């Protein structure tokens, strides 16, 4: 896997591993996340993992005055990526999340997938998901990938969503950690929102309402 490194403005670099959502690409992202967390590059302010990329945000003052700017940093990262990997990668934790499958969009999802509500519940709850990264809202975990039978489009216009609502969008699933406008199709809800980390595993356990 030959990653590409590109500038994200004047003070961040994104390392893009491969443009796809997959376990293996994501494992590479997490490996490098922990590498640059354990052995930070000078001037590092933030490390932001995503599906297939890792972004490093730098203190522009440090980078510009001491490392020939982002261009110099890019060279340094290229070199680090070839070095042997030594940081420890914490084991992802498994979260079992009780889910009341009574979301406002459950019947719409069932209809648009050509399945019964019971089948949607069974398919959503029988798979173990990976937390790919957190974004959108503080603590919002992007999890995937869902079974292709329950792939569903986002809403065109976001609607108000409550904390604890569980939604679907494309081949992703997630829990809203706080009330917010959102475009995901809500199929259920939970009162248990753990502190997620990228790399964690998630299972939804159906509970009766």
């Amino acid at each position, binding site marked *: 896997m030959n990653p590409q490194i590109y500038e*994200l403005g*004047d*003070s961040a670099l994104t390392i893009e591993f491969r443009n796809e959502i997959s376990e293996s690409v994501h494992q590479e992202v997490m490996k490098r996340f922990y590498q640059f967390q354990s052995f930070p590059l000078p001037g590092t*302010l933030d490390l932001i993992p*995503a599906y297939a990329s890792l972004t490093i945000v730098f203190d522009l003052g440090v980078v510009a005055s001491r490392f020939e700017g982002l261009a110099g940093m890019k060279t340094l990262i290229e070199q680090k990526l070839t070095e042997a990997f030594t940081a420890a990668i914490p084991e992802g934790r498994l979260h079992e999340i009780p889910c009341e499958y009574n979301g406002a969009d459950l019947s719409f999802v069932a209809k648009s997938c050509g399945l019964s509500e019971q089948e949607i519940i069974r398919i959503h709850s029988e798979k173990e998901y990976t937390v790919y990264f957190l*974004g959108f809202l503080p603590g919002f975990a992007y999890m995937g990938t869902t079974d292709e039978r329950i792939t569903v489009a986002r809403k065109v216009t976001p609607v108000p969503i409550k904390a604890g609502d569980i939604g679907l969008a494309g081949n992703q699933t997630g829990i809203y950690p706080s009330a917010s406008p959102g475009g995901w199709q809500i199929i259920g809800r939970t009162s248990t929102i753990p502190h997620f980390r990228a790399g964690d595993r998630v299972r939804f356990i159906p509970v009766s309402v």
Partner: protein
Amino acid sequence: MNLIKKGLLDTWQGLPSFGLQHEGIPPGGAMDTFSLQIANALVGNDVYDKALEMHFPAGVYQFEKSTLIAICGANFTACVDNVEVPMNQPIKVPPGAILSCKKPVSGQRVYVATRELKDEQVSRLKILPWSMNPENVFTDDPIRILCGREWEQIKACSQQLVLSKSFAISPTSNRMGYQLMQEPLKTLASQNLLSSAITAGTIQLLPSGQLVVLMAGHQTTGGYPRLAHVISADLPRLAQKGPGDSLRFTLTDPTTAEYEWILEQNYLQQVRNVCSLKLSQHRFDHH
């Protein structure tokens, strides 16, 4: 400081706090970090202290104790006890004094830095005899941008449009981002990308063909094409523009972006040095 009347959007803001974006927590912070830092310097605050960021109509506040204040950024005709006070200048206010803003003249966000004067009882308003006038900062020059990851994917005519047209800032713009109004650009075939990190200053191409510039309150990740990025040194200037204003973009290069940032930081350091010298001399003369 006690709130007497709430403003449209008054918050205490400091420099962005980084380090938690992997938890989905954005760095946030003041929109115009330049004015914030001038205000903090004028009252002798630490660079990481927070100041009151206000929009118009701004809140009305009463000081409980003798306080040193400085007002920077937007000119909203700031008044203490209904008397207009100068901007970019340290002001001693007595307990009970009331700060209000009467009329917007220029800019979008005012910063009020405050420091309680613990060893001094101020009996009447006193304007200290020095000011930091950040001249030539809030000009109408084009906002400088760097090419984004998807810049090369838009057509040459769209690139030309971005670099030649004047964009109006939409009324829906806020601390999260500025929506820009212009004839819609042609969107990309791969309009929805895999979500990845975004930063303040990232210019995204929305599915509607319009552009949005992400500002201080942006989310940590996004999936729309990143056409360009406003350079860090120009973000404070952009932050003082708002609905009803228009702006132009011009392309620059990373070396210029880095150089301009260093210049800005050096200028702020000079301001801090001069202000702390002035304040210590003043304290010496005073006692």
